[in-house]
């Protein structure tokens, strides 16, 4: 029995299971909710298995079909991909539970197959060991995400989805052109082989530029963020949550992989530029979030700002800074999903998400409001949340490298975040009378939001374990890493 668990190709299962789930949901639409939930639980189990395997045996490489690189497809799981998979599994499970109460039957039959396809693509992306496979999975992810945004059906959502699709395709084509140039230069698309053969040439510079630009567009780094707020705000709530928490981080993950392992060390000079753009995103996104009058748009702009934080690690470049950024990413995913879910509950309960009129709603949904506040604590980076740990590590790295101005950005970003979070939370404490009939919010939806938010906060108290996990396979030792 134990041998079976040890030898199970968990990494492959992690991709096949949601795919199978999606197909089954598609074939039996009447049972899509229980089948989808079952699929989600199955993925969580497989990721747990993979986690066990990686911790026990170190980084894993699977040769799918036995073909091997360069013709076949390799899957590779090290600490970095494992942590991202785990985070996806936790948030994904939360989104699944939330969605089971959110959608009406007519939408649910479309949502579940698409969501599980998206999950498949995301897991495959996180396990891909070559840059072409990354392109394919990124494209699959983008297409299913666009379809999910369009699910809301209104004119806003459809135009936002259209824009999202065009931007996404543009980004992936830029990336693909870069892949072509790298393949031409080194005769391989395998990340490990590329890392070995890497040397500088004009074609490589062009490839680095194209791939980075495409990925930055998809990660919505300022000033390429214009498409994100409308898409994230007009989608159905569970979709907003998974876009802001999971989909955006996929392109960041690819960029991080390439930066750490493939790109030539000379590219580090561009780190200052990325840091600068990140800093602008932090401030611009924060200010825009503060100016919004609708809750979902506020949260969407907050995502723009939070993505900016991640890029502050590029100019710092120490392994401590990378881990800090990843920890921010991790806690942001949970907190942001919880925030969107809380917004969804408020929307369902009061029928609107105008911030100025929240007072009549907020007081009657204490669990939801607690979820929003706890998520806000993590996003602000107040202790003891996961966001605090990430921010602490970035601050520490900034002082260590003597680049204190990034610390200033981190602090100012935190203050802006506090301003827009409390702009919302403050409405819980008013003497407003309840004036209208409210629709009921299922308890599952309230509790999912609360549990995810709580997880984001408690992440701060259990940092050593995930951080140690990150070292498996030494993802922070090659390329531009120092």
């Amino acid at each position, binding site marked *: 029995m134990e041998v079976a668990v040890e030898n199970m190709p968990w990494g492959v299962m992690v991709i096949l299971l949601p795919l199978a789930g999606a197909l089954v949901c598609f074939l039996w639409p009447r049972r899509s909710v229980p089948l989808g939930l079952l699929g989600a639980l199955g993925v969580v189990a497989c990721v747990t298995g993979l986690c066990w395997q990686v911790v026990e045996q170190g980084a894993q490489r699977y040769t799918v079909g036995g073909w091997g690189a360069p013709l076949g497809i390799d899957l590779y799981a090290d600490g970095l991909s494992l942590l991202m998979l785990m985070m996806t599994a936790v948030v994904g499970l939360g989104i699944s539970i939330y969605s089971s109460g959110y959608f009406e039957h007519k939408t649910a039959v479309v949502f579940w197959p698409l969501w599980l396809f998206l999950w498949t693509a995301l897991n495959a992306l996180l396990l891909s060991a070559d840059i072409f496979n990354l392109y394919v999975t990124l494209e699959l992810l983008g297409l299913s995400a666009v379809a999910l945004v369009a699910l809301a059906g209104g004119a806003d959502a459809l135009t936002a989805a259209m824009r999202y699709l065009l931007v996404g395709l543009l980004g992936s084509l830029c990336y693909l052109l870069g892949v072509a140039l790298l393949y031409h230069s080194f005769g391989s698309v395998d990340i490990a082989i590329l890392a070995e053969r890497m040397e500088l040439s004009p074609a490589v510079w062009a490839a680095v530029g194209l791939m980075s630009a495409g990925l930055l567009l998809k990660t919505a780094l300022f000033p390429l963020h214009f498409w994100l707020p409308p898409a994230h705000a007009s989608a159905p709530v569970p979709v907003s949550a998974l876009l802001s928490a999971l989909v955006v981080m996929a392109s960041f993950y690819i960029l991080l992989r390439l930066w750490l392992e493939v790109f030539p060390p000379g590219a580090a000079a561009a780190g200052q530029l990325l840091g600068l753009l990140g800093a602008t995103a932090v401030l611009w996104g924060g200010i825009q979030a503060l100016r919004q009058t609708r809750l979902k748009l506020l949260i969407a702009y907050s995502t723009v700002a939070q993505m900016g934080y991640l890029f502050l690690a590029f100019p710092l470049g120490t392994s401590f800074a990378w881990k800090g950024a990843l920890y921010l990413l991790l806690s942001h995913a949970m907190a942001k999903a919880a925030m969107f879910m809380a917004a969804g509950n408020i929307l369902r309960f009061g029928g609107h998400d105008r911030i100025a009129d929240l007072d009549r709603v907020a007081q009657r949904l204490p669990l939801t409001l607690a979820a929003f506040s706890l998520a806000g604590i993590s996003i602000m980076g107040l*202790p003891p949340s996961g966001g605090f740990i990430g921010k602490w590590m970035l601050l520490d790295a900034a002082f260590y490298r003597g680049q204190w101005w990034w610390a200033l950005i981190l602090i100012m970003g935190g*203050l802006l975040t506090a301003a827009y979070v*409390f702009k919302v939370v403050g409405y819980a404490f*008013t003497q407003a009378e309840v004036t209208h009939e409210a629709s009921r919010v299922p308890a599952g939806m309230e509790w999912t939001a609360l549990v995810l938010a709580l997880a984001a906060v408690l992440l701060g108290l259990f940092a050593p374990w995930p951080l140690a996990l990150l070292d498996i396979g030494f993802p922070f030792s090659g390329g531009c890493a120092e």
Partner: protein
Amino acid sequence: MRRVNWDSGLLLLILATSLVPGLVIFFLPEERVAIRTTLNMGGAVVKLVLVGVLIWGVLHGHQYETRLPLLPGGLDLVLHADAESVLFVTLSAVLWLVTTIYAIGYLEGSQHRSRFFGFFSLCVTATVGVALAGNMITFLVFYELLTLSTYPLIVHRGTEEARQAGRVYLRYTIAGGALLLVGTVWLYDVAGSFEFTHRGVVAGLDDADRTVLTAIFVLLIAGLGVKAALVPLHGWLPRAMVAPAPVSALLHAVAVVKAGAFGIVRVVDDVYGVEFAASLGVTGPLAVLAATTIVYGSLRALFQDNLKRRLAYSTVSQVSYIVLGVAVVGPIATVGGLVHLVHQGLMKITLFFCAGNLAETLGVHNISDMNGIGRRMPWTMAAFTIAALGMIGVPPLAGFVSKWYLGLGALDAGQDWVVFILAGSSLLNAGYFLPVLYATWFKAPPDAWPAERSYGRRETAWALLAPPLVTALLVVAAGLLASAPFSPLQWARFITTQEYAP
């Protein structure tokens, strides 16, 4: 994994006695008054007992410490009980018990009580955490938790004024927290450690850049100064007066301003080391800042007609005595500062309880309405009088002991100017308290009070009356029995012998 034995578990238990009831209370329906009261009181009493055990243990040389690794590389959350923590923990535990009784009486029948008592318990948890923190990051964690748990208490009433005050409070404290965070990270980067030790970790650094150390000191003090209401960072405190009376009492006597003052004591004594801080030349400016705050707060208090606002400015002034005592640099002045941490808490909480009683029973908020109020509420006003006289520094009350040691300490340290500040401040104290006392006892009462509530033959509800009487008694006791063992003064001396040990 560190073995959890009884000694390390004790500190966690002390935290849990308010954290667990608080979390449970959040989920209680409004009308479950009996369970809520039991939880509140039970937690407070158990905490007090555990603190008693802690005092016994510390005196008998037990080492209390609990660690939780926060980040690899030696960054831990540390709970640690030394003599200073015990002083602050005891103060919090005692005053929490009386404030809980008071709050139960004060909020009887009002809305959102589960929410109130939930955050109230979290607030005390945070304060105790601040007291027990064994290094800067643990301190920071609880310091921020304190900000978050007091905000809902300040805006509790939900009026536009309260929400405005809440916003101002957050603006100040979140910004202060950010400064403290930057200072802490920078300190960690320079010193590699920030555990609280008797001589201070910074004092042991040989090759550190002194300008950088000064800059870090300024950041830390600025961050802490917000809560300690040092001028010019005091603006939030008078506005926070819109909070319900038990909250103001807690804020002014134990929780928020004390956390700031205690933090300053920690930074000067246990992070930098008081002698090293003096050699760095940062204690002089800090003393001047504290002196300015003392005078400024008293001057502003003179011109307030609203009783709670006058008390608020009085707090601005009085808390800086603690900072002054530390910044004067000398064993005797440090004793004065530390003992004032306790004494100011006892006196100020009494004053706020009494102010709350006047508002709740008679609807009196302004000093101009207090004529002859001593005849209507003699017990309340007797407690008020004792506390006010203590604040002025009349012997043998608690405030006198503080001021005596501060003055002696300043002379001992050769900083004679401080004595003039103390004398001037006492005059101002008298200037803003004595007219109130005169009006209370000797002027004729009006025909009718603004909004009187009847409590039968008693002047007010017992839950409102007992707490100020108890704390007023403690004010007398702390002064009269100052040289008895276990008095705040003796404990402050005990601490100081450790800080200044050769």
